[in-house]
């Protein structure tokens, strides 16, 4: 096998995929703003992404806040800087951990479900059936999921912020012996609106990426059960990698020195 040909094929394949995703994104976004809108489907997706993801996001946030307080305390104790625990917990949760971990958890739950559902519809000709019934699949399947993803992830992250900080508070007060009033004062004093806003902006972008990857891989899945399985895996992996990459880029935008 010619190694140059192999590199060429891989490169062409990579740019072809980028082109396809760009085209898909442009169509999907266009149909988010052009009627008809399917309110019933949007409502269903808002509940599916927002309400049903609350337990997993909440549990992730509380344990993350708890372990963060514990770890930062043991680390800072070496430098007699235990007082910084409250600051570290609230800034880490709001800026980074809540949006990223919520994004990754929702990606596993919702991105996979979207890819599996649309993928199954695609391989069983249900997507074609939508078209023959004068219904644009982008408007019916993709647009409600994209809108719901963008709207619900920030709300989930806001809840995760509160629960995560509360988790840190619980460990700090009941296990590490901090004074509750002092801890809350330090938390409140260090927190800036930008810390929360940057997390919410990240969440909206992550929600878009999760829905986009779920829909894209589902829509293009081929070849029966195996194809749907591959689409599901690709949706979760690509959304997770994109979340981490965009997290860095958005952090640069908000907090670059």
């Amino acid at each position, binding site marked *: 096998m010619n190694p140059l040909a192999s590199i060429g094929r891989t490169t062409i394949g990579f740019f072809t995929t980028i082109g396809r995703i760009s085209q898909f994104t442009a169509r999907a976004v266009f149909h988010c703003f052009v009627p*008809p809108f399917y309110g019933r489907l949007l409502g269903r997706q808002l509940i599916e992404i927002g309400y049903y993801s609350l337990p997993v996001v909440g549990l992730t946030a509380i344990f993350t806040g708890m372990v963060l307080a514990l770890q930062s305390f043991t680390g800072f104790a070496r430098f007699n800087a235990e007082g910084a625990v409250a600051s570290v917990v609230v800034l880490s949760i709001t800026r980074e951990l809540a949006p990223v971990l919520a994004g990754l958890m929702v990606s596993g739950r919702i991105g996979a479900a979207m890819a599996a559902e649309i993928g199954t519809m695609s391989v069983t*000709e*249900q997507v*074609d059936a939508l078209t*023959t019934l004068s219904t644009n699949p982008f408007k*019916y399947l993709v647009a409600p999921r994209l809108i719901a993803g963008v709207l619900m992830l920030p709300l989930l992250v806001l809840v995760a912020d509160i629960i995560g900080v509360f988790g840190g508070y619980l460990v700090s007060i009941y296990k590490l012996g901090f004074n509750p009033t002092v801890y809350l004062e330090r938390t409140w004093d260090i927190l800036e609106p930008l810390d929360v806003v940057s997390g919410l902006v990240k969440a909206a972008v992550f929600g878009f990426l999760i829905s986009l990857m779920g829909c894209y891989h589902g829509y293009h899945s081929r070849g029966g059960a195996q194809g749907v399985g591959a689409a599901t895996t690709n949706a979760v992996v690509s959304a997770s990698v994109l979340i981490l990459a965009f997290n860095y880029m958005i952090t640069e935008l908000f907090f670059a020195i």
Partner: protein
Amino acid sequence: MMANETPKIAIQNLHKQFGEKVVLDGVDLLVPEGQSVVIIGGSGTGKSVLLKNILGLLSPEKGSITIDDQDVVGMDWPERERILQKVGMLFQNAALFDSLTVWENVAFGLIEGRGMKRKEAQEIAYDKLADVGLGPEIAPLSPAELSGGMRKRVGLARAIATDPEIIFFDEPTTGLDPIMGDVINDLIVDRVKHLGATTLTITHDMASARKIADKIAMIYQGKIIWAGPVSEIDESGNDFVDQFIHGRAEGPIQMDVRAG
């Protein structure tokens, strides 16, 4: 074709290929208004691809497809939507929406495609289900709870729900036992006569083709190699057609039995 027959669908010099594989290689076909045309041909000869090109689910490389004298190749969505409102389609495996009940499936084109109120569309859906021999007790069920024959009937009810001018049938009897297949054929003939619709069916079931068709066309290696009235197919004088309709292994059509 007779000179006074107005074509509802006209396909000229249609080419479609996937990579190096040529699937349609210059297909010409006229479907006269109010007639039932059946395309026969073996597996992998391009029947489904032809249907998907007509419906706009695939785009051909070359050639034209006109429906009511409007070229539909490369048509944008709003225009295509207007064309699709004239169309009904029965898919090979019915392609019912898993997330909806039976009546919601049947009423889908009315509610989402035409903006009809749910209550009104539900009444029509129940009527259409009755037309295909299904009672109201079936209506609230999920498609997963139905047998293959029932799913096909629901698919047929959905295809005729909007009283379309054109109906496409993709392998309507595939996967059914011979009796249920004949029941579906009878339903198709009955409903199509009732609606006065133009129909295009693809199948490799000759019993179904003889029952449904006014005219039969045979596709082989991406081309229509014979077309004529159903009454003339037994005397087509075409060796490919003869071999196919009699289901003989020997003849000019050689099947690839080995992969690759």
